[in-house]
């Protein structure tokens, strides 16, 4: 019975380690492997930190367990109380500070590449403007062959909850929020960025494989937060172009034929001429 407390205190760290070891096999782990090059780097950073933490965690708990276990049977010696050791304190201040400093410097590249616009990969093109609103993602594409402009254009194409992007090259979206704060989260691509009303935030990502990825809101935005789901389709260049063309045809549908003159013409003519 004397061993109750050592066993009790050792049970939890062992449970934690066992959970971690079996987690990937039980599908308690990441939402699939990272589907983007940057996501892979983010995962690597995660594993690096996990290893550092695991070593520290196991080390301290083995020490704690050893001390407890030994202490139970030790009836003779009175516990020894220490009030400070300058060397020890220096050690456990400098060692964690060094580790933290290492982590913060080591991850700077990834951070800059992900967040700092001037460090975005070369050739990152904005494909769409994504506007989060309660409780959906409203998406605006430029017309085929046009650039995405900050303000809506007459020939822009609109859709909702369905973001199509080409795979295999970095693309970016302009993220906006219409009402409250939302967060643009594609778990499989390891992309997460808050959408803040009043700002336009560029977010880049690259899907390394074609497929359908979940798009969710990761910021509690109201009662319907749970239903704010979308999907991201990563397609080949030609598939993406085809999608935009289909969207354009659908958007300009007049019930009879496809007009030769699409909404693009409105912008080209210039509206002030009509006054």
């Amino acid at each position, binding site marked *: 019975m004397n061993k109750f407390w050592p066993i009790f205190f050792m049970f939890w760290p062992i449970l934690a380690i066992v959970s971690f070891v079996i987690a990937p096999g039980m599908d308690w782990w990441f939402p699939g492997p990272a589907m983007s090059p940057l996501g892979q780097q983010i995962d690597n950073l995660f594993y690096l930190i996990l290893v550092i933490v695991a070593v520290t965690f196991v080390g301290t708990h083995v020490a704690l367990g050893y001390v407890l276990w030994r202490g139970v049977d030790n009836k003779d010696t009175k516990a020894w109380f220490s009030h400070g050791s300058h060397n020890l304190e220096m050690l456990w201040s400098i060692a964690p500070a060094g580790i933290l400093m290492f982590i913060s410097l080591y991850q700077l590249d990834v951070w800059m590449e992900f967040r700092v616009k001037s460090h975005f990969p070369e050739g990152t093109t904005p494909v769409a403007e994504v506007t989060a609103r*309660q*409780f*959906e993602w*409203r998406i605006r594409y430029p017309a085929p062959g046009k650039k995405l402009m900050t303000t*809506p*254009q*007459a020939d822009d194409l*609109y859709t*909702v*909850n*369905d973001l199509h992007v080409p795979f295999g090259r970095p693309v970016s979206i302009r993220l906006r929020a219409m009402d409250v704060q939302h967060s643009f989260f594609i778990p499989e691509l390891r992309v997460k960025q808050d959408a803040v009303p009043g700002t336009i935030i560029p977010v880049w990502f690259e899907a390394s494989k074609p497929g359908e990825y979940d798009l969710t809101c990761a910021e509690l935005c109201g*009662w*319907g937060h749970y*239903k*704010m*789901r*979308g*999907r991201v389709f990563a397609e080949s260049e030609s598939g993406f172009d085809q999608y935009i063309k289909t969207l354009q045809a*659908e*958007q*300009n*549908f*007049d*019930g*009879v*034929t496809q*007009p*030769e*003159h699409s*909404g693009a*013409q*409105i*912008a080209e*003519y*210039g*509206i*002030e*001429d*009509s*006054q």
Partner: protein
Amino acid sequence: MKRSISIILLVAALPLVGCDSSRAPSFQLSEQSLKLSNFAQDKVQGELTAGFGSPAELVVWPELEIDFGQFGGTIGKVGPRPGTIRIGQTAADGLKPQSELATEKLLQSLRGAAVVVTNAQSSAETTSEAAPANEEATSAPSVYRVASYDTASRLLSVIDESGQPAQLNASEGDTVQVLGSTLQTGRNLYLRHCMHCHGVSGDGAGPTAQYFKVKPRDYRQGVIKFTSTKAAVPHPSRDDLFRIIKLGVPGTYMPSFMLLPDDEVNLIVEYVRWLAMRGEMERKLNAWLSTSYSQEAVNEADSLSELQSEFEAEWNTDSAEFIERFGNDLKLDWQDADKPESVVNPTAPRTPSSPESIARGRELFLSKDAKCASCHGETARGNGPSTEAFNDLPGMPPGTKSDKPGLFDNWGNIVKPRDLTTGVFRGGRRPIDIYRRIHSGIKGTPMQAFGTTLKEEQIWDVVNYVLSIPFEDKQSGH
């Protein structure tokens, strides 16, 4: 330590206390029905329950223009437990699955759906009052309700009216049909995705509706604002409802349900149509009874019993005929909505947008013929003079003025004419969508139909102008 453990257990048990099973969803009578005298209310309630049932026990009224859905087959085996049937291999024949995933998931909660067992031999011993009359059958079928159904093993558990496992009058080779499977699954999806705004009865007064400035649609008039149907067709087509659910209504709280599989959306569409029909039936009964048998009539009557017996007499002689007629009207009206010729489709393609076309559209917008500006305002900001005037109330006899200034819709809410400068189009932004808005108006609102007053090319000019408004030069002085 014991005490701390018991406290932890108590806290852990707290969420269980929150569940209140007594609050099962139920259909509520409309505000108009509640103005009827009590005896008339009872009849209306009885008629609605007979024709439509309750959320827990839906009634299949085959006369309605609804795909109620059914599946079944021959009985492979009765048992092993009391009240269970294993449907034979032909069971899937009656199913119309559009995707494996949806069917599997949706058939899980068929509880309460009607089960009809028709004996193969003509040795009918039991008959049920609820059994539909079927003159061709050699024996009267027995009717039960589904307790559960397992799609993998095809095991159907049935219960009787008291909720106990049914004493089955069935044997191998008999025919078993589960009725209303589509409506039932539509209801499950509706209760999950739609009910919290649109309400159990489809009255647009679900629990979250109170927080909204733009109210969720009340289906009970059978009217939906944004349709592809002509002005004379009161109802939306199935396709209209499908689009609205899939795409949402931009500028309102109606979100897009793009990620729901198509067949699930179709089931919701069917259930919404059914709710609308239920609401319309209630309105038709009200229109018939409210003049003579309202609460007000009771207050003014010399003798309550006299009025009541008069009512009973009228009900007994006329109700069957009226209800049949109402049902028939519903059927025809809703059939109309899905006919291809009910859809507004211009014969002339859209006039290519050009400065000239836009100028002509603007001219019309400001003209006396189209008088768009009287509501939408000369600058199209939705602030025309009508928004400040005392207007006729829609759905009322002409000349009934509102007591507040503003434009009202059929549901009694003040509606603002759309501010066309924002570039947000609730009914869709395709040229055809805006064409249809102008051609047949927006149902249930003061936005009237211009399909007869304007020519096709004129409507296209207005469409071109409307689509150009968000990009107008704001400095041009108008």
